[in-house]
C-alpha cells in the first residue's frame, strides 16, 4: 500500500495516457494494446484501495471493447474523450482515491458521450447500439461521422419547433444510414420539384395536355419511391397523396383545375421546405432535423381529390407565398386547409403565358459533371494553351524552319484552341431555368396586386456562363417586380386608357456582339421623367436649366438612393432602389439602361459578357510588371503632346484630349512600381471611362490586345484597383485592373476630382 502502490498505478495510468495518444481511428491494433493496459490496471497489486479507479477501469474496458466490435464509433472524437477520461483517472489516482467523486462523475459523463450506458459502472452495457453501419470499423473513419456519432447518445427528445411533431429520434434518423444516397436524393428532389413547378405553370395554359400532366406525375412518383426507400415517411406520404390526386387527373376522374394547380404548387413548396431541411441536416448534423407536420397538407390534397369544394377561398396571402415565406407558411397551423379558391375565377386570374412551352423542349443526352471537375478541366486546358505558346516561342525552337514542325505546330494550335472552346462552352447553360422562375414570380405578383399580366418569354435557349446564373437571378427578380408592380397598371386603369385589360411583360434574351442581352419590357405607364427631373434638381444632381434628354434623366434612377416610391411613381411599396440592380449587373461586368416612354411603357436592357471567365483586355507594361486593362472601358490610347499637358496646382496633372480636360493617373505611383518613364510625354496614356468619369492612365508601353482568362488571386481579395489575375503567354501572372477601384482610389487620394 501507500506511496509505492500509488506510484505504480500512476505510472501505469501514464502509460495508458501515452497509448491513447497514439491511437488513430481505424488503427485497431493500438486499441488492442490499450485494452491490455486497461486490463492490467485491474490486476495491479493494491488497486483494491481505489474502488473508483476500479469502476472507471472496468467501464473503460467495456467501452473500448465496444469500439473494437464496431458497436460504438471508431472516431477521433471518441478517442479524445477516452483520453480525457484517462486524465480523470490520473486525477483520482493523484488524490489517492479520496475526494475523487468529481473526477469519477466527469469520467462517466464522458463515457456517456461516447455511448456508454451503465447504472453503476458495472457490466450492464446495454446501449442498443445505434444502427451504426455494420461496415468494418476501419472504413468508418472516412465517412463524415458526426451524424452517426450524435445519434447514439440521444435519448433526448427530437428537435422541437413550430408545427413539428415529436417523433422517436432513431426512427426519424434512419435515413441517415446512407448519407450518399440521401445527398443524391436531396439534389434530385430539388430538381424534380423545380420541373414540377415549371410544368404546373405550363398546365395553367394548357390544362388538357396529357404529356405535361405526366411530367408532373412522374417526378412525384420518383420522389415517393426514393423517399420510401430512405424511410422518409413524411415526404413519402406527401408525395404519395399528391400522386394519387394526379393519377385521378391523368385518368380523367378529376378535372385539371385551379384547385389542383394550387394544391400541387403548395405541396411542391412544402416538399421543398422539407428537403431543404434535409440538406441542412446533411450539412449541420441531425439536430437540425425537423419533423414537419404534414397532416394538414395531406388532408387538403385528399379534400381536393374527393371533390369537396369547401366554400372558403384561398387566402391570397397563402397563394402568393414565395419560397422564402414557405417556412413561415408551414409554421402556421392549418394554413392551407381553407383551400380551393373560387376567387381564382375573379378578376385576379393571372394569365401567365410562357411562349415556348417548356414541356416540349427537346433535350439532348447529357451527363452531370461536378462543377469542380469542370473548372479543373478549364484550368488545365488554359494551362495547355499557354504551355503550347511557351514551347513555340522558345528561342531554340523559334529559329527552326522545318516545314513539318511549323505545320505540326499549326495543327497543335488548332486542336488546343478547339479544346479550349469546347471546355469553355461546357460551362455555358441556357438561361431557361432562370427565366422559368419568373413565371411563378409574375403569377404570384399579379395575383397579389390584382393585375392581369401576360409574361412573354423569348430566347430561353440563350446560353450564359454557369457561374453567372445565380448572380443574375436577383437583379432580374427585382426588375420583374418593378415592371409588374409599378409598370403595368390595374385592369380598370388600363381600360380607361384604352389599353387591353391585361398588361404584357416581355422577357427576352439574345446574344449580340459578344454580349448576352436581357430585355424586360412592359406596356405600362412608363417612367415619370418629369418627376425624376424634379427629384434630380432637388438632390442637386442636375441644375435647374439642365438640358439632359429624357433618356439621360430616366437613367438617373440607377443612382443610389434615388428611386423611392414617392419620387417616381405614385404606387407605394417600392422596394430597394434600382442602384442595387446596377451594382449587381456591374459586378458581372455588365451594363444596364432604361428606355421609357411615359404612358407607353418601359424597356430595361441588361448587357452582360457571355462569360465571367474571359475578358478582352489590353496588356500594358509599367516597369517590370504587366497589367491588363479591360477593353470595354478603354476609349483610346495616345502619346501625349507637351502642349496638352498641364499641372493644376495642388490638384494634380491634366491632359487635354479631344477638348476635354482629363486627370492624369500615374499607374506606377498608384501601384508603387519602378517605371521606365516618369515624364508623361515619353510615356503612353490610356483613356478610360468608368461611370461617366474619364481618366488618362499613364503606362510605359502597350503590349497588345488579348483575351485573357480571369482567375482570382487565391486568398487575396478586395485589393483596390485589382480585379483579379491572369496567366500571360510566358506563364507569369498579370494583374487585371479594376477601374472602379482605380478611379475611386485616385479620387480619394485627392489628386484630382472632376
Amino acid at each position, binding site marked *: 500500500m501507500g506511496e509505492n502502490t500509488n506510484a505504480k498505478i500512476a505510472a501505469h495510468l*501514464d502509460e495508458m495516457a501515452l497509448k491513447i495518444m497514439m491511437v488513430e481511428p481505424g488503427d485497431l491494433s493500438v486499441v488492442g494494446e490499450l485494452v491490455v493496459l486497461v486490463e492490467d490496471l485491474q490486476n495491479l497489486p493494491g488497486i483494491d484501495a481505489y474502488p473508483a479507479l476500479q469502476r472507471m477501469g472496468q467501464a473503460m474496458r467495456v467501452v473500448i471493447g465496444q469500439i473494437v466490435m464496431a458497436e460504438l464509433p471508431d472516431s477521433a472524437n471518441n478517442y479524445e*474523450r477516452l483520453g480525457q477520461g484517462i*486524465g480523470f483517472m490520473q486525477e483520482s489516482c493523484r488524490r489517492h482515491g479520496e475526494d475523487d467523486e468529481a473526477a469519477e462523475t466527469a469520467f462517466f459523463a464522458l463515457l456517456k458521450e461516447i455511448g456508454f450506458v451503465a447504472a453503476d459502472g458495472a457490466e450492464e452495457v446495454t446501449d442498443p447500439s445505434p444502427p451504426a453501419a455494420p461496415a468494418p470499423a476501419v472504413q468508418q473513419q472516412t465517412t463524415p461521422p458526426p451524424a452517426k456519432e450524435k445519434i447514439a447518445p440521444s435519448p433526448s427528445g427530437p428537435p422541437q419547433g413550430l408545427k413539428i411533431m415529436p417523433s422517436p429520434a432513431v426512427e426519424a434518423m434512419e435515413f441517415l444510414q446512407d448519407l450518399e444516397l440521401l445527398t443524391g436524393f436531396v439534389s434530385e428532389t430539388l430538381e424534380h420539384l423545380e420541373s414540377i413547378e415549371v410544368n404546373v405553370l405550363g398546365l395553367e395554359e394548357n390544362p388538357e395536355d396529357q404529356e405535361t400532366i405526366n411530367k408532373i406525375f412522374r417526378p412525384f412518383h420518383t420522389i415517393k419511391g426514393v423517399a420510401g426507400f430512405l424511410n422518409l415517411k413524411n415526404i413519402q406520404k406527401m408525395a404519395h397523396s399528391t400522386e394519387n390526386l394526379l393519377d385521378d387527373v391523368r385518368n380523367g376522374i378529376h378535372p385539371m383545375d385551379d384547385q389542383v394547380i394550387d394544391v400541387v404548387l403548395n405541396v411542391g413548396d412544402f416538399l421543398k421546405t422539407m428537403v431543404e431541411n434535409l440538406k441542412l441536416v446533411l450539412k449541420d448534423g441531425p439536430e437540425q432535423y425537423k419533423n414537419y407536420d404534414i397532416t394538414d397538407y395531406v388532408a387538403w390534397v385528399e379534400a381536393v381529390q374527393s371533390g369537396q369544394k369547401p366554400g372558403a377561398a384561398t387566402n391570397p396571402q397563402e397563394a402568393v407565398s414565395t419560397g422564402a415565406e414557405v417556412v413561415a407558411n408551414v409554421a402556421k397551423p392549418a394554413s392551407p386547409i381553407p383551400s380551393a379558391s373560387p376567387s381564382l375565377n375573379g378578376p385576379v386570374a393571372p394569365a401567365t403565358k410562357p411562349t415556348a412551352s417548356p414541356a416540349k423542349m427537346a433535350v439532348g443526352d447529357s451527363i452531370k459533371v461536378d462543377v469542380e471537375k469542370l473548372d479543373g478541366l478549364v484550368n488545365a486546358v488554359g*494551362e495547355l494553351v*499557354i504551355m503550347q505558346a511557351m514551347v513555340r516561342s522558345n528561342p531554340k525552337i523559334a529559329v527552326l524552319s522545318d516545314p513539318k514542325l511549323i505545320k505540326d505546330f499549326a495543327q497543335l494550335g488548332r486542336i488546343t484552341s478547339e479544346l479550349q472552346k469546347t471546355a469553355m462552352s461546357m460551362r455555358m447553360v441556357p438561361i431557361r431555368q432562370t427565366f422559368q422562375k419568373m413565371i411563378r414570380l409574375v403569377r404570384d405578383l399579379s395575383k397579389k396586386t390584382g393585375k392581369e399580366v401576360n409574361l412573354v418569354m423569348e430566347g430561353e435557349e440563350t446560353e450564359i456562363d454557369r457561374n453567372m446564373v445565380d448572380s443574375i437571378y436577383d437583379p432580374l427578380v427585382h426588375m420583374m417586380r418593378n415592371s409588374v408592380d409599378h409598370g403595368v397598371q390595374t385592369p380598370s386603369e388600363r381600360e380607361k386608357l384604352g389599353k387591353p385589360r391585361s398588361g404584357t411583360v416581355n422577357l427576352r434574351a439574345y446574344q449580340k456582339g459578344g454580349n448576352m442581352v436581357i430585355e424586360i419590357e412592359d406596356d405600362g405607364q412608363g417612367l415619370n421623367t418629369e418627376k425624376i427631373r424634379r427629384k434630380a434638381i432637388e438632390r442637386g444632381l442636375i441644375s435647374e436649366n439642365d438640358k439632359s434628354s429624357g433618356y439621360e434623366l430616366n437613367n438617373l434612377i440607377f443612382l443610389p438612393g434615388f428611386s423611392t416610391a414617392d419620387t417616381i411613381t405614385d404606387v407605394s411599396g417600392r422596394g430597394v432602389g434600382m442602384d442595387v440592380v446596377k451594382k449587381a449587373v456591374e459586378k458581372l461586368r455588365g451594363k444596364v439602361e432604361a428606355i421609357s416612354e411615359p404612358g407607353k411603357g418601359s424597356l430595361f436592357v441588361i448587357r452582360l459578357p457571355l462569360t465571367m471567365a474571359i475578358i478582352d483586355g489590353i496588356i500594358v507594361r509599367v516597369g517590370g510588371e504587366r497589367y491588363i486593362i479591360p477593353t470595354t472601358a478603354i476609349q483610346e490610347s495616345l502619346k501625349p503632346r507637351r502642349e496638352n499637358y498641364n499641372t493644376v496646382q495642388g490638384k494634380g496633372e491634366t491632359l487635354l484630349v479631344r477638348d476635354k480636360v482629363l486627370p492624369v493617373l500615374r499607374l506606377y505611383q498608384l501601384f508603387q512600381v519602378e517605371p521606365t518613364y516618369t515624364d508623361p510625354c515619353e510615356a503612353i496614356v490610356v483613356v478610360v471611362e468608368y461611370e461617366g468619369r474619364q481618366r488618362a492612365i499613364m503606362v510605359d508601353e502597350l503590349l497588345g490586345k488579348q483575351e485573357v482568362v480571369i482567375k482570382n488571386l487565391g*486568398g487575396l481579395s478586395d485589393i483596390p484597383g485589382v480585379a483579379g*489575375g491572369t*496567366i500571360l503567354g510566358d506563364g507569369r*501572372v498579370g494583374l487585371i485592373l479594376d477601374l472602379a477601384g482605380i478611379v475611386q482610389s485616385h479620387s480619394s487620394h485627392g489628386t484630382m476630382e472632376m
Partner: protein
Amino acid sequence: MEGAALAVEGNAGQGLGGKYLTFSLGSEEYGIVITKVREIIGIMEITAVPHTPDFIKGVINLRGRVIPIIELRMRFNMEVKDYDDRTCIIVVDVPGPNGTVQVGMLVDSVSEVINIAPQDIEPPPDFGVSTDAENIIIGMGKIKGKLKILLDVDQVIGRTLASTLSAM
C-alpha cells in the same frame, strides 16, 4: 513521463505528435504538420500585388492556379536575404473565407520530414508578454537535442490574409 503528463493535461488528446516538415529560416528550424503541405516548389518569378503588406511578395502561377506567396522571413520580421538555389516555396492548404485556399510560403530551405513523438513536444515558450508568437507556435519539438519551432499554419497564414484585408 513528465512530457506525456503535460501533453495530456495541456492539450488533452490533440495529438501533437506526428510527422512534420521542417525548414529553416536563418539559423532557426521550423516545422509544420505534414498534412497541411501540398507541395514544395523552387523559387519562380513572382508578380507583385499592390496595396498588400510587404510580406506578401505577390502571386505566382501554380499550374494554372494563381496563388499568393508569403515571405516568411518578413512575416516574422526577420532580415530579408537574397534568394538562392535552396530557396523554396512550400505550398500549404489553409482555410480561406470561401473554402480551402492554397498559399505559398517562401523559406530559406526545406530540411526533412521527421516524426515527432508527443512526449518530445514542449509547450510554446512563455515570453512574458502576449506576443504574436504565442498564437502561431503550437509547441517546441525536441529532436536529437535540437529545437524545432512547430508552427500552426492556419494561424500564420490565416492571420496574414486577415491582416491583409484589414490593412485596406
